[in-house]
Protein backbone atom coordinates (compact mmCIF):
# COMPACT_ATOMS: atom_id res chain seq x y z
CA UNK A 1 0.00 0.00 0.00
CA UNK A 2 2.70 2.45 1.05
CA UNK A 3 4.68 1.88 -2.17
CA UNK A 4 1.80 2.45 -4.60
CA UNK A 5 0.89 5.49 -2.58
CA UNK A 6 4.44 6.75 -2.78
CA UNK A 7 4.46 6.37 -6.56
CA UNK A 8 1.06 7.96 -7.00
CA UNK A 9 1.90 10.89 -4.77
CA UNK A 10 5.29 11.42 -6.34
CA UNK A 11 3.74 12.68 -9.55
CA UNK A 12 1.79 15.67 -8.15
CA UNK A 13 4.62 16.39 -5.72
CA UNK A 14 7.10 16.47 -8.59
CA UNK A 15 4.84 18.71 -10.64
CA UNK A 16 4.24 20.94 -7.62
CA UNK A 17 7.97 21.32 -7.01
CA UNK A 18 8.59 22.17 -10.66
CA UNK A 19 5.76 24.71 -10.90
CA UNK A 20 6.96 26.37 -7.68
CA UNK A 21 10.47 26.58 -9.11
CA UNK A 22 9.15 28.09 -12.34
CA UNK A 23 7.15 30.60 -10.27
CA UNK A 24 10.32 31.59 -8.42
CA UNK A 25 12.12 32.27 -11.70
CA UNK A 26 9.19 34.22 -13.19
CA UNK A 27 8.98 36.33 -10.00
CA UNK A 28 12.67 37.27 -10.33
CA UNK A 29 12.12 38.15 -13.99
CA UNK A 30 9.06 40.26 -13.15
CA UNK A 31 6.94 38.13 -15.46
CA UNK A 32 3.62 38.65 -13.66
CA UNK A 33 1.25 36.65 -15.92
CA UNK A 34 3.50 33.56 -15.96
CA UNK A 35 4.07 33.88 -12.22
CA UNK A 36 0.33 33.86 -11.52
CA UNK A 37 -0.32 30.92 -13.83
CA UNK A 38 2.55 28.92 -12.28
CA UNK A 39 1.16 29.56 -8.80
CA UNK A 40 -2.30 28.43 -9.94
CA UNK A 41 -0.74 25.23 -11.22
CA UNK A 42 1.04 24.77 -7.89
CA UNK A 43 -2.26 24.93 -6.03
CA UNK A 44 -3.91 22.47 -8.40
CA UNK A 45 -1.11 19.95 -7.75
CA UNK A 46 -1.32 20.45 -3.96
CA UNK A 47 -5.05 19.75 -4.28
CA UNK A 48 -4.35 16.64 -6.34
CA UNK A 49 -1.97 15.37 -3.63
CA UNK A 50 -4.58 15.99 -0.95
CA UNK A 51 -7.16 14.05 -2.96
CA UNK A 52 -4.87 11.03 -3.20
CA UNK A 53 -4.32 11.05 0.57
CA UNK A 54 -8.07 11.49 1.04
CA UNK A 55 -8.73 8.48 -1.16
CA UNK A 56 -6.46 6.35 1.03
CA UNK A 57 -8.39 7.45 4.11
CA UNK A 58 -11.65 6.67 2.34
CA UNK A 59 -10.26 3.25 1.49
CA UNK A 60 -9.40 2.67 5.16
CA UNK A 61 -12.90 3.66 6.32
CA UNK A 62 -14.58 1.51 3.72
CA UNK A 63 -12.58 -1.53 4.71
CA UNK A 64 -13.33 -1.15 8.43
CA UNK A 65 -17.00 -1.71 7.58
CA UNK A 66 -16.14 -5.39 7.17
CA UNK A 67 -14.61 -6.12 10.54
CA UNK A 68 -13.99 -9.58 11.93
CA UNK A 69 -12.50 -11.15 15.04
CA UNK A 70 -8.73 -11.33 14.66
CA UNK A 71 -6.34 -13.15 16.97
CA UNK A 72 -3.25 -11.04 17.62
CA UNK A 73 -0.61 -13.78 17.39
CA UNK A 74 -1.39 -14.72 13.74
CA UNK A 75 -1.37 -11.03 12.75
CA UNK A 76 2.15 -10.69 14.13
CA UNK A 77 3.27 -13.99 12.60
CA UNK A 78 2.11 -12.89 9.12
CA UNK A 79 4.01 -9.62 9.42
CA UNK A 80 7.20 -11.28 10.63
CA UNK A 81 7.03 -13.77 7.78
CA UNK A 82 6.71 -10.91 5.31
CA UNK A 83 9.68 -9.15 6.86
CA UNK A 84 11.98 -12.17 7.23
CA UNK A 85 14.33 -10.97 4.48
CA UNK A 86 14.34 -7.44 5.83
CA UNK A 87 15.29 -8.68 9.32
CA UNK A 88 18.08 -10.81 7.95
CA UNK A 89 19.43 -7.93 5.88
CA UNK A 90 19.39 -5.66 8.90
CA UNK A 91 20.86 -8.33 11.19
CA UNK A 92 18.02 -7.90 13.66
CA UNK A 93 15.72 -10.38 15.37
CA UNK A 94 12.29 -10.24 16.92
CA UNK A 95 11.29 -11.41 20.41
CA UNK A 96 7.54 -12.06 20.51
CA UNK A 97 5.58 -12.48 23.75
CA UNK A 98 1.86 -12.94 23.26
CA UNK A 99 -0.06 -14.94 25.89
CA UNK A 100 -2.09 -17.82 24.45
CA UNK A 101 -5.04 -16.77 26.56
CA UNK A 102 -5.20 -13.37 24.86
CA UNK A 103 -8.61 -12.77 23.25
CA UNK A 104 -9.11 -11.46 19.75
CA UNK A 105 -9.62 -7.91 18.53
CA UNK A 106 -12.32 -6.56 16.21
CA UNK A 107 -10.94 -5.24 12.97
CA UNK A 108 -9.94 -5.58 9.35
CA UNK A 109 -7.14 -8.12 9.19
CA UNK A 110 -5.32 -6.55 6.22
CA UNK A 111 -5.34 -3.08 7.70
CA UNK A 112 -4.22 -4.22 11.13
CA UNK A 113 -1.39 -6.18 9.53
CA UNK A 114 -0.44 -3.04 7.63
CA UNK A 115 -0.19 -1.08 10.89
CA UNK A 116 1.93 -3.74 12.60
CA UNK A 117 4.10 -4.06 9.50
CA UNK A 118 4.75 -0.32 9.50
CA UNK A 119 5.63 -0.31 13.19
CA UNK A 120 7.95 -3.31 12.86
CA UNK A 121 9.67 -1.85 9.79
CA UNK A 122 10.15 1.52 11.53
CA UNK A 123 11.57 -0.28 14.56
CA UNK A 124 14.01 -2.25 12.41
CA UNK A 125 15.15 0.84 10.56
CA UNK A 126 15.59 2.70 13.86
CA UNK A 127 18.14 0.08 14.97
CA UNK A 128 20.48 0.39 11.98
CA UNK A 129 23.06 2.20 14.12
CA UNK A 130 22.56 -0.06 17.14
CA UNK A 131 25.32 -2.66 17.79
CA UNK A 132 24.27 -5.93 16.14
CA UNK A 133 23.86 -7.88 19.41
CA UNK A 134 21.40 -5.25 20.64
CA UNK A 135 19.16 -5.28 17.54
CA UNK A 136 16.19 -6.99 19.12
CA UNK A 137 12.67 -5.88 18.34
CA UNK A 138 10.28 -6.79 21.16
CA UNK A 139 6.67 -7.39 20.25
CA UNK A 140 4.24 -8.15 23.02
CA UNK A 141 0.53 -7.93 23.60
CA UNK A 142 -1.59 -7.89 26.73
CA UNK A 143 -5.23 -7.48 27.69
CA UNK A 144 -6.04 -4.31 29.58
CA UNK A 145 -9.66 -4.45 30.73
CA UNK A 146 -11.82 -4.49 27.60
CA UNK A 147 -8.85 -3.46 25.45
CA UNK A 148 -5.82 -5.12 23.97
CA UNK A 149 -2.46 -3.32 23.87
CA UNK A 150 0.08 -4.39 21.26
CA UNK A 151 3.59 -3.01 21.90
CA UNK A 152 6.35 -2.80 19.31
CA UNK A 153 9.59 -1.78 21.04
CA UNK A 154 12.99 -1.10 19.48
CA UNK A 155 16.48 -0.31 20.79
CA UNK A 156 17.16 2.56 18.40
CA UNK A 157 17.95 6.16 19.35
CA UNK A 158 14.43 6.85 20.66
CA UNK A 159 12.40 9.90 19.69
CA UNK A 160 13.69 13.34 20.71
CA UNK A 161 11.38 16.15 21.84
CA UNK A 162 11.35 18.08 18.56
CA UNK A 163 10.56 14.95 16.55
CA UNK A 164 7.95 13.83 19.07
CA UNK A 165 5.65 16.74 18.20
CA UNK A 166 5.63 15.77 14.53
CA UNK A 167 5.62 11.98 14.52
CA UNK A 168 2.09 11.79 13.11
CA UNK A 169 2.28 14.92 10.94
CA UNK A 170 1.71 14.06 7.27
CA UNK A 171 4.86 14.36 5.16
CA UNK A 172 7.09 14.62 8.22
CA UNK A 173 9.91 12.08 7.97
CA UNK A 174 13.35 11.47 9.43
CA UNK A 175 14.23 8.94 6.72
CA UNK A 176 16.01 9.92 3.53
CA UNK A 177 13.60 9.15 0.73
CA UNK A 178 10.76 8.67 3.23
CA UNK A 179 7.34 10.01 2.39
CA UNK A 180 6.24 10.81 5.95
CA UNK A 181 2.87 9.14 5.67
CA UNK A 182 3.33 5.70 7.27
CA UNK A 183 2.56 6.60 10.88
CA UNK A 184 -0.12 9.06 9.88
CA UNK A 185 -1.98 6.33 8.00
CA UNK A 186 -1.37 3.87 10.86
CA UNK A 187 -3.02 6.23 13.30
CA UNK A 188 -5.95 6.77 10.93
CA UNK A 189 -6.38 3.01 10.74
CA UNK A 190 -6.21 2.68 14.55
CA UNK A 191 -8.74 5.45 15.05
CA UNK A 192 -11.13 4.03 12.47
CA UNK A 193 -11.05 0.85 14.61
CA UNK A 194 -12.03 2.94 17.66
CA UNK A 195 -8.49 2.45 18.83
CA UNK A 196 -5.40 4.52 19.30
CA UNK A 197 -1.73 4.63 18.41
CA UNK A 198 0.74 6.18 20.87
CA UNK A 199 4.48 6.11 21.48
CA UNK A 200 6.97 6.63 24.27
CA UNK A 201 10.71 6.38 24.85
CA UNK A 202 11.91 3.28 26.69
CA UNK A 203 14.05 3.16 29.79
CA UNK A 204 17.42 1.92 28.59
CA UNK A 205 16.98 3.49 25.11
CA UNK A 206 14.71 3.07 22.12
CA UNK A 207 11.07 3.76 21.40
CA UNK A 208 7.90 1.80 21.97
CA UNK A 209 4.72 2.17 19.92
CA UNK A 210 1.46 1.01 21.47
CA UNK A 211 -1.52 0.02 19.37
CA UNK A 212 -4.63 0.08 21.52
CA UNK A 213 -7.64 -1.85 20.19
CA UNK A 214 -10.91 -3.11 21.61
CA UNK A 215 -11.44 -6.77 22.48
CA UNK A 216 -14.09 -8.62 20.57
Amino acid at each position, binding site marked *: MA*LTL*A*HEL*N*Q*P*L*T*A*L*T*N*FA*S*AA*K*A*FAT*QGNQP*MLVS*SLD*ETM*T*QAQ*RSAEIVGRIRGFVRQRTAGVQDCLVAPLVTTVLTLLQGEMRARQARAAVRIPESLGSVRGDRVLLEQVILNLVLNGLQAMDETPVEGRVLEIDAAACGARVHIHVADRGPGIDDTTADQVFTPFFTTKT*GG*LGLGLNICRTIAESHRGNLTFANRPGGGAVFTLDLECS
Partner: protein
Amino acid sequence: MNPELASVKNLYVVDDDEAVRRSLGLLLLSRGHAVQVFASGEAFLGSADVQNPGCVILDLRLGDMSGLQVFDTLRAQESPLVVLFLSGHGDIPVAVEAVQKGAFGWLEKPCNDAHLLGTLAKALGMAAHIATQLRSRQAALALWSRLTPREMQVARLVAQGLPNKRIALDLAPLELRTVEAHRAHVFAKLNLSNSHELDRFLREHKV
Protein backbone atom coordinates in the same frame (compact mmCIF):
# COMPACT_ATOMS: atom_id res chain seq x y z
CA MET B 1 22.83 30.84 -19.49
CA ASN B 2 26.19 29.68 -20.74
CA PRO B 3 26.25 30.38 -24.53
CA GLU B 4 27.80 26.99 -25.21
CA LEU B 5 24.83 25.29 -23.49
CA ALA B 6 22.38 27.48 -25.38
CA SER B 7 23.89 26.09 -28.57
CA VAL B 8 22.33 22.71 -27.75
CA LYS B 9 18.98 23.10 -29.42
CA ASN B 10 17.46 19.70 -28.87
CA LEU B 11 16.04 19.36 -25.37
CA TYR B 12 13.25 16.87 -24.81
CA VAL B 13 11.06 15.76 -21.90
CA VAL B 14 9.25 12.42 -22.07
CA ASP B 15 6.76 11.69 -19.25
CA ASP B 16 3.30 10.16 -19.36
CA ASP B 17 2.00 12.29 -16.48
CA GLU B 18 0.52 15.43 -18.01
CA ALA B 19 1.23 17.62 -14.97
CA VAL B 20 4.82 16.41 -14.55
CA ARG B 21 5.47 16.94 -18.24
CA ARG B 22 3.99 20.44 -18.36
CA SER B 23 5.60 21.52 -15.09
CA LEU B 24 9.02 20.40 -16.23
CA GLY B 25 8.50 22.20 -19.53
CA LEU B 26 7.55 25.39 -17.72
CA LEU B 27 10.42 25.11 -15.24
CA LEU B 28 12.92 24.77 -18.10
CA LEU B 29 11.24 27.54 -20.07
CA SER B 30 11.50 29.85 -17.05
CA ARG B 31 15.28 29.30 -17.16
CA GLY B 32 15.52 30.07 -20.85
CA HIS B 33 15.57 26.54 -22.27
CA ALA B 34 13.40 25.75 -25.26
CA VAL B 35 12.01 22.28 -24.73
CA GLN B 36 9.81 19.80 -26.58
CA VAL B 37 7.60 17.50 -24.52
CA PHE B 38 6.24 14.04 -25.36
CA ALA B 39 3.66 11.88 -23.60
CA SER B 40 5.07 8.52 -24.71
CA GLY B 41 8.24 6.82 -25.85
CA GLU B 42 6.66 6.03 -29.22
CA ALA B 43 5.73 9.68 -29.83
CA PHE B 44 9.23 10.77 -28.87
CA LEU B 45 11.03 8.26 -31.11
CA GLY B 46 8.56 9.02 -33.90
CA SER B 47 9.09 12.76 -34.12
CA ALA B 48 12.18 13.85 -32.18
CA ASP B 49 15.45 14.49 -33.97
CA VAL B 50 17.33 11.60 -32.37
CA GLN B 51 20.23 11.66 -34.83
CA ASN B 52 21.45 15.05 -33.67
CA PRO B 53 23.10 15.90 -30.34
CA GLY B 54 20.92 17.11 -27.50
CA CYS B 55 19.49 15.95 -24.22
CA VAL B 56 16.40 13.98 -23.26
CA ILE B 57 14.87 13.81 -19.78
CA LEU B 58 13.17 10.43 -19.84
CA ASP B 59 10.73 9.04 -17.26
CA LEU B 60 11.51 5.43 -16.31
CA ARG B 61 7.87 4.48 -15.92
CA LEU B 62 6.07 5.28 -19.13
CA GLY B 63 2.91 3.66 -20.48
CA ASP B 64 3.40 1.02 -23.18
CA MET B 65 7.09 1.47 -23.78
CA SER B 66 9.26 1.84 -20.68
CA GLY B 67 11.93 4.51 -20.39
CA LEU B 68 14.54 1.78 -20.47
CA GLN B 69 13.18 0.44 -23.78
CA VAL B 70 13.32 3.94 -25.27
CA PHE B 71 16.92 4.18 -24.06
CA ASP B 72 17.80 0.81 -25.65
CA THR B 73 16.23 1.96 -28.94
CA LEU B 74 18.29 5.15 -28.90
CA ARG B 75 21.43 3.14 -28.33
CA ALA B 76 20.57 0.71 -31.11
CA GLN B 77 20.18 3.70 -33.45
CA GLU B 78 23.52 5.11 -32.22
CA SER B 79 21.78 8.31 -31.20
CA PRO B 80 24.15 10.99 -29.83
CA LEU B 81 21.43 12.20 -27.39
CA VAL B 82 22.44 12.51 -23.73
CA VAL B 83 19.90 10.69 -21.55
CA LEU B 84 18.82 11.77 -18.06
CA PHE B 85 16.30 9.50 -16.35
CA LEU B 86 13.50 10.60 -14.07
CA SER B 87 12.78 7.94 -11.51
CA GLY B 88 10.46 7.38 -8.61
CA HIS B 89 11.48 6.34 -5.14
CA GLY B 90 11.36 2.58 -5.75
CA ASP B 91 13.10 2.64 -9.13
CA ILE B 92 16.59 3.73 -8.14
CA PRO B 93 18.18 0.30 -8.85
CA VAL B 94 16.79 0.43 -12.41
CA ALA B 95 18.15 3.95 -12.83
CA VAL B 96 21.57 2.85 -11.61
CA GLU B 97 21.52 -0.01 -14.11
CA ALA B 98 20.68 2.43 -16.90
CA VAL B 99 23.63 4.63 -15.96
CA GLN B 100 25.89 1.60 -16.10
CA LYS B 101 24.59 1.04 -19.64
CA GLY B 102 25.57 4.58 -20.63
CA ALA B 103 22.82 6.95 -19.50
CA PHE B 104 24.20 10.25 -18.24
CA GLY B 105 22.40 10.18 -14.87
CA TRP B 106 19.08 10.26 -13.13
CA LEU B 107 16.88 12.61 -11.15
CA GLU B 108 14.68 11.31 -8.37
CA LYS B 109 11.08 12.49 -8.28
CA PRO B 110 10.40 14.93 -6.71
CA CYS B 111 13.69 16.68 -7.29
CA ASN B 112 14.72 20.10 -5.96
CA ASP B 113 15.33 22.67 -8.66
CA ALA B 114 18.97 23.40 -7.84
CA HIS B 115 19.87 19.74 -8.25
CA LEU B 116 17.73 19.39 -11.37
CA LEU B 117 19.20 22.47 -13.08
CA GLY B 118 22.73 21.57 -11.98
CA THR B 119 22.49 18.06 -13.40
CA LEU B 120 20.84 19.33 -16.57
CA ALA B 121 23.62 21.91 -17.07
CA LYS B 122 26.19 19.10 -16.89
CA ALA B 123 24.18 16.97 -19.32
CA LEU B 124 23.89 19.89 -21.75
CA GLY B 125 27.61 20.47 -21.39
CA MET B 126 28.13 16.87 -22.42
CA ALA B 127 25.73 17.31 -25.34
CA ALA B 128 27.63 20.41 -26.49
CA HIS B 129 30.88 18.45 -26.29
CA ILE B 130 29.38 15.62 -28.36
CA ALA B 131 28.11 18.19 -30.89
CA THR B 132 31.61 19.70 -31.22
CA GLN B 133 33.13 16.26 -31.72
CA LEU B 134 30.53 15.34 -34.34
CA ARG B 135 31.09 18.58 -36.21
CA SER B 136 34.83 18.10 -36.30
CA ARG B 137 34.39 14.50 -37.45
CA GLN B 138 32.02 15.58 -40.21
CA ALA B 139 34.51 18.24 -41.33
CA ALA B 140 37.29 15.64 -41.31
CA LEU B 141 35.22 13.20 -43.33
CA ALA B 142 34.45 15.93 -45.85
CA LEU B 143 38.18 16.58 -46.29
CA TRP B 144 38.90 12.84 -46.52
CA SER B 145 36.26 12.36 -49.20
CA ARG B 146 38.18 14.77 -51.46
CA LEU B 147 41.00 12.22 -51.71
CA THR B 148 41.10 9.80 -54.64
CA PRO B 149 41.03 6.05 -53.79
CA ARG B 150 44.74 5.81 -54.63
CA GLU B 151 45.55 8.80 -52.41
CA MET B 152 43.61 7.16 -49.54
CA GLN B 153 45.69 4.01 -49.99
CA VAL B 154 48.92 6.00 -49.93
CA ALA B 155 47.71 8.09 -46.95
CA ARG B 156 47.22 5.00 -44.78
CA LEU B 157 50.74 3.79 -45.49
CA VAL B 158 52.25 7.25 -44.95
CA ALA B 159 50.49 7.41 -41.59
CA GLN B 160 52.27 4.19 -40.60
CA GLY B 161 55.52 6.07 -41.13
CA LEU B 162 56.60 4.12 -44.24
CA PRO B 163 59.08 5.81 -46.62
CA ASN B 164 58.01 6.54 -50.23
CA LYS B 165 60.27 3.82 -51.64
CA ARG B 166 58.60 1.16 -49.51
CA ILE B 167 55.13 2.46 -50.42
CA ALA B 168 56.02 2.28 -54.11
CA LEU B 169 56.98 -1.37 -53.60
CA ASP B 170 53.89 -2.19 -51.54
CA LEU B 171 51.57 -0.70 -54.13
CA ALA B 172 53.59 -1.85 -57.15
CA PRO B 173 53.45 -1.22 -60.00
CA LEU B 174 53.72 2.37 -58.84
CA GLU B 175 56.47 4.84 -59.54
CA LEU B 176 58.35 6.57 -56.76
CA ARG B 177 57.59 9.96 -58.27
CA THR B 178 53.87 9.21 -58.30
CA VAL B 179 53.99 8.26 -54.61
CA GLU B 180 55.72 11.55 -53.88
CA ALA B 181 52.97 13.40 -55.72
CA HIS B 182 50.23 11.47 -53.86
CA ARG B 183 51.88 12.21 -50.52
CA ALA B 184 51.98 15.93 -51.29
CA HIS B 185 48.33 15.92 -52.40
CA VAL B 186 47.22 14.11 -49.25
CA PHE B 187 48.92 16.65 -46.98
CA ALA B 188 47.59 19.57 -48.99
CA LYS B 189 44.00 18.31 -49.18
CA LEU B 190 43.85 17.35 -45.48
CA ASN B 191 45.67 20.48 -44.39
CA LEU B 192 48.35 18.50 -42.56
CA SER B 193 52.12 18.83 -42.53
CA ASN B 194 53.61 15.47 -41.50
CA SER B 195 52.95 11.74 -41.09
CA HIS B 196 52.41 12.04 -37.31
CA GLU B 197 49.56 14.48 -37.85
CA LEU B 198 48.15 12.21 -40.52
CA ASP B 199 48.26 9.24 -38.18
CA ARG B 200 46.46 11.20 -35.46
CA PHE B 201 43.87 12.44 -37.99
CA LEU B 202 43.05 8.86 -39.08
CA ARG B 203 42.79 7.59 -35.50
CA GLU B 204 40.81 10.54 -34.13
CA HIS B 205 38.18 10.47 -36.82
CA LYS B 206 38.16 6.70 -37.24
CA VAL B 207 38.50 7.07 -40.99
